[in-house]
């Protein structure tokens, strides 16, 4: 579904921040992306949500080589990817409702469907009473939940999240992880960049580890795998 072959990325004429990245994500897989600060996690995510184009190598997404796609096809491809940005990137002139509804409106979905789905999801993330609030009047945790709702509202085929539980207390953090897991079980491929070792350990998923621009994949820890098999969370 997603295949990277010898992918490299550099900014301007600087050194490569990602070097010779090779991996494959199968449909419905779940990965944590981890590594020290500055290792290139955000850069790799930006390649995955097509915010940047690689300076070398081949990227295949959903069976298509992105280097061969036109602008409209790339836009359509981006619609199949949900992203939770580390800094949320909410539109401050729009209500929480409109922020969540935005991906649906971009896709041209009927207004009635938008009304129903957005209201339901906002209720689910515990923001049913904050529908009309503007983001800058909300707490960090609330903003993060709006960002997450916006990323999942279209049921994307690939969900990317950059430190999605950073501003949340443990309870809500685990609840959101459960949401990601549910989406994953429904067939969404999930990649979550996180420093949170507790979450990585608790949820038995593969780890993509970035170090100095290079990537390797680790199988889940025995502890996490056991918990996952036992369905503890």
């Amino acid at each position, binding site marked *: 579904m997603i295949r990277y072959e010898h992918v490299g990325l550099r900014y301007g004429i600087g050194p490569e921040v990602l070097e010779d990245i090779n991996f494959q994500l199968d449909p419905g897989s779940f990965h944590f992306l981890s590594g020290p600060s500055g290792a290139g996690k955000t850069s790799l995510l930006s390649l995955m*949500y*097509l*915010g*940047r*184009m690689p300076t070398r190598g081949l990227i295949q997404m959903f069976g298509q080589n992105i280097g061969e796609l036109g*602008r*409209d096809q*790339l*836009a*359509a*491809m*981006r*619609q*199949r*990817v949900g*992203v939770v940005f580390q800094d949320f*990137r909410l*539109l*401050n*002139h*729009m*209500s929480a*409702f*409109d922020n969540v*509804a*935005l*991906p649906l*409106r*971009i*896709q041209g979905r009927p*207004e009635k469907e*938008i*009304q129903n789905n957005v209201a339901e999801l906002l209720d689910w993330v515990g923001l049913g009473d904050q*529908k*009309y609030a503007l983001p800058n009047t909300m707490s960090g945790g609330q903003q993060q939940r709006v960002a997450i709702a916006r990323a999942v509202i279209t049921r994307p085929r690939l969900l990317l999240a950059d430190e999605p539980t950073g501003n949340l207390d443990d309870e809500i953090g685990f609840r959101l992880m459960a949401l990601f897991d549910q989406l994953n079980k429904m067939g969404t491929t999930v990649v979550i960049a996180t420093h949170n070792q507790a979450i990585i350990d608790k949820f038995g998923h593969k780890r993509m580890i970035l170090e100095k621009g290079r990537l390797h994949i680790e199988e889940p820890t025995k502890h996490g795998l056991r918990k996952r098999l036992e369905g503890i969370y």
Partner: protein
Amino acid sequence: MQPLIRKFRNTLSRDRALGVAKGKRRYDLPLTGGSSNSLLRLLIGLMSILGMLALAASFALSAMTTRWEQGLADKITIEIPASDSAGEMIAASSVQGMTDDAAKIVGARGDVLEAEIMEESHVLELLSPWLGEDMVMDSIPIPGIISVTFEKDTRPDIKALEAEIKEVAPRARIDTHENWLSEVARFTGALQFAAILLGIIISVTTLVAVAGGVRSKLSENKEELELLHLMGASDSYIAKQLQRHTLILSLQGGAIGVIGGAVLLFIIGMVAGNMGVNLVPDFKLGGKQRLMLVLLPLPIAALAMLTARFTVMRVLTKMP
């Protein structure tokens, strides 16, 4: 009743907050508000006023040329000079006799509608701007002048007529007004070219101002723009929002411009009338011309809209 009104108001404001009030003006980018919108509106208003003035001037010039051409198309003037080839004055009675003979020849033609010998007083009146009001009549040779009007659409042989007249008045000259008319045509042509040039300047100014405005709007909202792009909004989806926004502002500016332009044209008409400017007697804008003036902001708004689209598309191509 009161709770019902409150409920209705709440629904409206909620819809507005939701941006789903079948919001014909809903934008994903924060485009509304801000001084740049007022500036663009004002600029389009001013451009519309300038455009209206240029267009109205062009209509007036066109009417002026047409009337002069039509007025002189079937007319010639025969002049019987009051001096001989040596420059000696000819007796006034001889000039009068030659003029009468020439008028008889012309009057006998079947294609002549009217041949009128100009009164001496009228000739003097025409000469007075050059010679002064207090000229001594006896000291100045007054030529004989015959104004001839042919039947409409006849094509008289002027050379043959001149030869015929020269038999009774050897130094007679026929003026078909061609030289004067061609000079008038050149002059009005130059003025019309200036009006077209003004139209081009207006278009270019609109283009540059709108492109600048859109660029600054996009750079103000760079993060929001990037976000829409990353969420899969196509270039055309984003461009449509800026297009619509620019079109609405331009139409608002254009409406202001039409009102301003109409008031200005009315004032110019009044001032010109009071000053006795009568180059185009009874010139009034026709229905079609008025319609064109009123609709002038539409092409300006369309130009602004297309400029906005082109600018957004160019900015977006810099994104992957």
